[in-house]
């Protein structure tokens, strides 16, 4: 059974843990470098990316995460997508640079502009996509595969080991995206 961690500094880490369990993984919350080193894959959840960045910095988790991502799969949703990107704007902020995408924060507007839509994803078919203060992926590097778009913008992308969604599959009852990530971890 794949042992997958959920970065639990802040955000909807519990929802991810439940989705991963339903998708057949053993799940641990990760708040320290030691806990990170015990897992085979990691989910960076939705939440506030600025809050997560501050805690990553203060707890010296930034470099351990980068090293983890060099050899093991990471799945980032929403704030997690922002942390995995190579470039972040609105405002500009540092990121792990593990997936070659440029991201604009809070790009769909404030909470009033959050929405639930149906998208068509390569290999999945129709997927429910819950957007909450979502970022937009503005640029995609040559090594990145776009699996789904909404209004023309990429919303589910993959590069090597890593998977990125700007929406929240953990808020849906459909666990296929999590099952796909579990498969990436087991290889």
């Amino acid at each position: 059974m794949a042992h997958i961690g959920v970065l639990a500094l802040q955000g909807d880490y519990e929802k991810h843990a439940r989705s991963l369990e339903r998708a057949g993984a053993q799940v641990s919350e990760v708040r320290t470098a030691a806990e990170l080193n015990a897992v085979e894959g990691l989910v960076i959840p939705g939440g506030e990316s600025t809050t997560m960045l501050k805690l990553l910095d203060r707890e010296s988790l930034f470099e351990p995460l980068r090293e983890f991502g060099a050899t093991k799969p990471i799945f980032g949703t929403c704030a997690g997508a922002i942390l995995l990107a190579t470039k972040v704007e609105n405002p500009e902020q540092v990121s792990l640079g593990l997936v070659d995408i440029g991201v604009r924060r809070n790009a769909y507007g404030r909470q009033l502009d959050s929405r639930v839509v149906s998208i068509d994803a390569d290999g999945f078919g129709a997927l429910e996509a819950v957007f909450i203060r979502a970022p937009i992926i503005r640029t995609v590097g040559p090594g990145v595969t776009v699996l789904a778009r909404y209004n023309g913008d990429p919303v589910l992308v993959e590069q090597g080991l890593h998977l990125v969604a700007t929406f929240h599959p953990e808020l849906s009852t459909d666990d296929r995206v999590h099952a796909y990530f579990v498969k990436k971890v087991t290889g």
Partner: protein
Amino acid sequence: MILNEEFRLKIGLAEMLKGGVIMDVTTPEQAAIAEKAGACAVMALERVPSDIRKDGGVARMSPVSMIRGIMAEVSIPVMAKARIGHYMEARVLEALEVDYIDESEVLTPADEDNHIDKRPFKVPFVCGAKNLGEALRRISEGAAMIRTKGEAGSGNIVEAVRHMRTIQREMKQLTVLSHDELYAEAKRHQAPIELIEYVAANGKLPVPNFSAGGVATPADAALMMAMGAETVFVGSGIFKSHDPARFAKAIVKATTYWKDPAKVMEACDEVGVSEPMRGLDTSKLPAEELMANRGW
């Protein structure tokens, strides 16, 4: 049940706030300090609860220009307070596009009988509760997030503990009853049977349950997390302390790492010998001065 698509979206933002600290701020400068410390959201209000308590008079929704200034300053979500039952203040806040509205007992109630009907709004609401019945009544009106009331502006954690203990105990009790006993529980808690059934089946509220009212130190915040709070609101506790930036940062750390006493100790140590806000003995306050008794 009211768990339709729109309600799920409203609960969605509350989920994003989990494990974090929501801080009361009265100026863009304070909002910047809160964001830098790692707050996951800020509550924009004109005066922190301890000043409202001291000043007396009628406490109302904050000026639009002041809330707008805070919204322009930070990239994290901004909440603002409307008076209990004052649905026009809530409509104004929705038009302003705040991320969340707190229908709050900290402000002077506008309606002695009715809370705001929160279902028609697109913006999500948070409401206070002292017990399970009150929490479920607010959810039935459309609240997407509940916070235990505690006693705002007191710097005394005892009321927050009482309310969290009460709600947790009342939820646990429902889980061991058989279904034919739940109707009488609905009557006892004065709450809709569908929500009583949900709690009996799941042992938790259908929306996130946060804590508020009296958090003044990193250990207070960690205590509320340990008791089952999913996020902590800190009102006067930060900007009425003697070193707001350090208290803010330390409370964020204690909230994230509440399971690890060594980390909570580090957080307590980070504030050094700076004094937290001065607290009030809430047992000596006359009942009419308790904000928690506002609303039903």
